[in-house]
């Protein structure tokens, strides 16, 4: 789908702008991992290469383990839909340091651009922010235009959570920018960043 919506790379770059060492980032697999890498690979970014549907709950485990740090999960609409139940789990736990941002292009971008259930043009009817609200998230907002983005970024980075943001982005293709794919390396560098001693 070529059409309206924000530029995903610009949105993710703004989400990660001026990050300090206390911002911990988990991304979904595929496009959001490439977006975060395009904004600058970082030891405290954990990009998925699989485990679809797990990004939000990885973020929850991390948020519980590191209550003094902000945890920001950036994932796609397809990945979020596969873990929809985790929105309910997170609503129950109310982690005040967790934010989840969905970069919603309405498509499964890595597999041939099939429409997802958020895709209104295809008959999709799921309103992810409404789901988050219904699950008890403290903040849940939908961004469809640039003027709304600054407040949403501020909420995702700084406001007490759990914070849910979904951003309607263009489905136009963007270049691949790949993070390291060795999971042992990604986990080890993340733990080292936090000062976690090896076993």
């Amino acid at each position, binding site marked *: 789908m070529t059409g309206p919506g924000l530029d995903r790379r610009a949105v993710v770059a703004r989400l990660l702008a001026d990050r300090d060492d206390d911002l911990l980032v988990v991304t979904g697999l595929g496009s959001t991992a490439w977006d975060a890498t395009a904004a600058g690979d970082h030891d405290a970014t954990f990009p998925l290469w*699989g485990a679809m549907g797990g*990004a939000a*709950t990885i973020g*929850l*485990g991390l948020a519980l383990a*590191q209550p003094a740090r902000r945890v920001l999960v950036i994932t796609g609409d397809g990945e979020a839909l596969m873990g929809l139940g985790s929105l309910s789990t997170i609503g129950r736990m109310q982690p005040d340091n967790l934010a989840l941002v969905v970069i919603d292009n309405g498509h499964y971008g890595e597999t041939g651009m099939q429409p997802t259930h958020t895709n209104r043009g295809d008959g999709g009817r799921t309103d992810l922010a409404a789901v988050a609200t219904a699950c008890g998230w403290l903040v849940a907002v939908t961004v469809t235009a640039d003027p709304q983005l600054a407040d949403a970024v501020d909420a995702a980075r700084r406001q007490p959570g759990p914070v849910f943001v979904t951003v309607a982005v263009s489905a136009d293709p963007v270049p691949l920018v790949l993070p390291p794919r060795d999971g*042992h390396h990604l986990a080890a560098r993340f733990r080292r960043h936090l000062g976690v001693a090896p076993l």
Partner: protein
Amino acid sequence: MSVGAAEPAWAGEVHGVLRRHEVTQVSYVPDAGLSALITCCRMDPAMSLVSLSTEQEGIALAAGAWLGGQRSAVLMQSSGVGNCVNMLSLWRSCGVAGLLIVTMRGQFGEANPWQLPMGQITPEVLRLCGLVTFEVDDAARIVETVEAAATMVFRGGSACAVTIGQRAIGAKAFAPADRTAADGDRP
């Protein structure tokens, strides 16, 4: 920690094992056989108890805990192991040290045939997913087995599962005629 005279003694002792190993995140999808252990963990202020909407969330949660330097155990019934298969690629691909405690259905004395397809393949599935898997059928060996597994996980970094069989904890009775000699007080 005592949770009542009718509860199995191993629950409090397994909770003690998790506590000594500094497990701070315990997640679960409930099973009657895990009820007492869940209650022990709920009463422990040192533990975050996370109720899951599906078992695979527990695998992801444990990976997040691992990244953040905490220790996690995931509790589930054998049927839930099937829900975890792809998510367990996270543990294997990233070297996550996680502990699974699985109470079995679909085994010795099972009166619900729908539990058999998953229950009969649970230990094999866990091993195929890369977990060192211990099958316990004797209630007297539950605590020592969880202790051994916890040591392998949290000292050695190996993902492990302990399955607790229906010979040890009884089969679920749907009607009086379903009850077996092995059946204890499992609701």
